[in-house]
């Protein structure tokens, strides 16, 4: 079962690579023009294109690109001639670090708030949790980012407004620098996860075995924690993984606001320069992360199902 999912994931990743390649292929713009400027002569442009391999047929370019990726070679950036994999690594680590920081704050908080909302269903704590998380998801993330800067960097100068990190920085200094973007991300993903936790548990609460637990004299919180939560794990893990993927893939805006040197910024920089190989590489990395996290969600759902774990 798991092997099947894995194979399917690889197939999807391949399909995505094709889509990315075709997509960047039909984009307007020309990197040679970008490098040489508007005043370049047609001959110079043509020479540069040939040199960069832009005139080869699409299929052979796809094959050499995909072949390189399989060997771990993401190609070289057209604009500065650097190895993409190399310049990407440190930025990918930064992005993953920020995502992990936000996840460590948001996932337990979301599940705890979800449990709390179920325990006090339709009473004021539930309504308060729903209202605040809904408000935070409804506000655009750049707005949340600036509000956080206003409060925690300007009015109460607790954290720096620019999240600049560099190699060799201490762990806690790093956390301090990243506090505001991580907070902004937490607020963005919290509502989705919390509401899904609430809905998944409420769904389970309708089951007959919850009544059994109630008639054993268990307290409400024990019933939710011990009897409802284990049966709601699969949908919760699913939404958590989707949000983790968003934390990695969707952080472009937050990284730009806080000037954080992550993968999102790298991508945006090179999109504006029409540096197709970098855009393709980033797209593929994002897709791989997305597919990988969903694979984890699927496998967790399989593993948490007692019928599959303990066959008859």
């Amino acid at each position: 079962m798991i092997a099947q999912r894995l194979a399917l994931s690889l197939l999807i990743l391949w399909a995505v690579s094709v889509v990315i390649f075709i997509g960047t292929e039909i984009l307007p713009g020309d990197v040679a023009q970008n490098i040489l400027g508007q005043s370049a002569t047609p001959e110079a442009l043509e020479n540069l294109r040939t040199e960069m391999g832009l005139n080869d047929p699409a299929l052979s370019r796809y094959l050499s690109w995909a072949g390189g990726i399989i060997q771990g070679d993401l190609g070289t950036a057209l604009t500065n001639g650097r190895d993409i994999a190399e310049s990407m690594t440190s930025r990918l680590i930064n992005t993953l670090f920020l995502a992990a920081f936000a996840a460590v704050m948001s996932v337990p908080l979301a599940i705890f708030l979800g449990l709390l909302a179920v325990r006090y269903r339709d009473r004021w704590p539930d309504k308060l949790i729903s209202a605040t998380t809904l408000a935070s998801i409804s506000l655009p993330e750049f707005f949340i980012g600036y509000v956080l800067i206003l409060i925690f960097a300007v009015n109460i100068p607790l954290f720096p407004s620019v999240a600049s990190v560099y190699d060799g920085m201490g762990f806690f200094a790093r956390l301090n620098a990243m506090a505001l973007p991580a907070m902004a991300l937490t607020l963005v993903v919290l509502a989705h996860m919390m509401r899904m936790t609430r809905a998944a548990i409420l769904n389970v609460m309708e089951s007959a075995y919850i009544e059994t637990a109630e008639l054993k004299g268990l307290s409400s919180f024990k019933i939710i924690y011990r009897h409802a939560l284990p049966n709601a794990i699969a949908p919760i893990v699913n939404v958590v993984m989707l949000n983790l993927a968003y934390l990695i893939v969707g952080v472009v805006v937050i990284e730009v606001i806080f000037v954080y040197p992550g993968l999102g910024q790298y991508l945006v920089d090179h999109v504006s320069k029409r540096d197709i190989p970098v855009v393709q590489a980033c797209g593929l990395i994002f897709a791989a992360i997305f597919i990988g996290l969903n694979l984890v969600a699927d496998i967790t759902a399989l593993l948490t199902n007692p019928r599959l774990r303990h066959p008859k």
Partner: protein
Amino acid sequence: MSDETLLKIRDLEIAVEGTSPLLKIVKGVSFDLEKGKVMGLIGESGAGKSTIGMSAMGYGRGKLHTSAGQVILNGRDIAQAKRGVLNQLRGKEVCYVAQSAAASFNPAHKLIDQVIEATLEHGLMSAHEARTRAVELFTALGLPSPETIGDRYPHQVSGGQLQRVMTAMALCPKPDLIVFDEPTTALDVTTQIEVLAAIKHAIKITNVAALYITHDLAVVAQISDEIMVLRHGEMVEKGTTDQIINDPQQDYTKALLSVRSAQHEEKPATEKPVLDISNVTAGYGKIDILKSINMSLDPGHTLAIVGESGSGKSTLARVVTGLLPPRIGNVVFENTPLPPKQTQRSREQLREIQMIYQMADVAMNPRQTVGQIIGRPLTFYFGLRGAKRQARIEELLHAIELPVDFADRYPAELSGGQKQRVCIARALAAKPKVIICDEVTSALDPLVAEGILKLLADLQEREGVAYLFITHDLATVKAIADSIAVMHQGNLVRYGPKRQVLNPPFDAYTDKLLTSIPEMRIGWLDDVMAEHST
């Protein structure tokens, strides 16, 4: 109040919260239950018997709440008690056994952890002591490998075993009272008798008091000291089991007692069968569910197919209707073999075989009126429209003994019995020669079911339609069948005219099936179990 009184219920009224005027489910019921005694609560669905049982635990499902009266358990009135107080006695003084143990166990935890949970929660024993007690109870309830069965998950254990594990779960904290809510209703008849005997034995050795809720008077007669008959939330009659079974005072009780006694005079065999199932082997995937089945149905007759769940009787219905093409063999209708697949059959062939289902609820489109539901086959098969169609709908409603103005009602506005009648009318509308009835009375209360059986018999006499009647209930078979086919694990174990099938000499399975049907007399269970053990 004597020292021996465990539960004292006085003028209990239970209503649906927020209704105006207050919708009362239980209307002023009173009774006492002494320590170590078993009280049977009996009635049809909607009688309020489960609601009363739940109130002994201070529990109301959904929006139900106690609007008046007292529930005194061990000297304390718990009718209006708070959750915190109730949590102290639930799972300690009073425990619960539900109808569907399969749904009442948490699929995510091992059985043993669930069985001893309440005992540990209330600090009654150490974990080790609780486990030891659980294993003792598993042994007493006759569960296989009592030492290790607790390490399994609910889905790894059969329905009858789960019901016994749930009984062990209720007994584990040594409660004073157990509420049994239809604990054997969902089980096959041969499983029911084993579970019933196990429960009876466990009650005897632990000397626990019990409220035993069921709709089956024959079952409750085996286990209880006293019986209370309920209807529409009110008490009809109360007395010792002997009084209720042997000397009932009320007409309603008498009707409940006579419900299984209906008989049907067997019709003589005819020359040519209308439907002939010839050497059918069928199944799903690589597994054969049906193995070389041969049987035939005479025109205007009823062939009852009897078997427990998993015997393949519904699969046979799917083969006859063409939903499941057989691997080997075929179905012959009036000398013409029917194409195996439904999609290959002509409209005329489809018309001749109609079907009525167990769950009338889900067999009808809730957004269509009764008139539309019955009218559809009239237009589809006969092209009837307008006034002609209307006239025929009224005729059919008349045939199923419903008022003509029911044509404008929606299924949700009908009772269970009325819904099943509409399904019968829909099948009749096609003027079929054969109707397949798949457990059509299983979901109905006994008296309502009796009405449906009578209607089916009348219709057969008038219209000459033949029934392929699938059921697990042998009492129903006696009331309706001309011939009987007994199925077990996909095989036809016994087949022939009713008189022959129901009389000795029996094969082992039919004998077991027949002796497992609860009889309406005290001591039946003891007699059967004594016979089994010799």
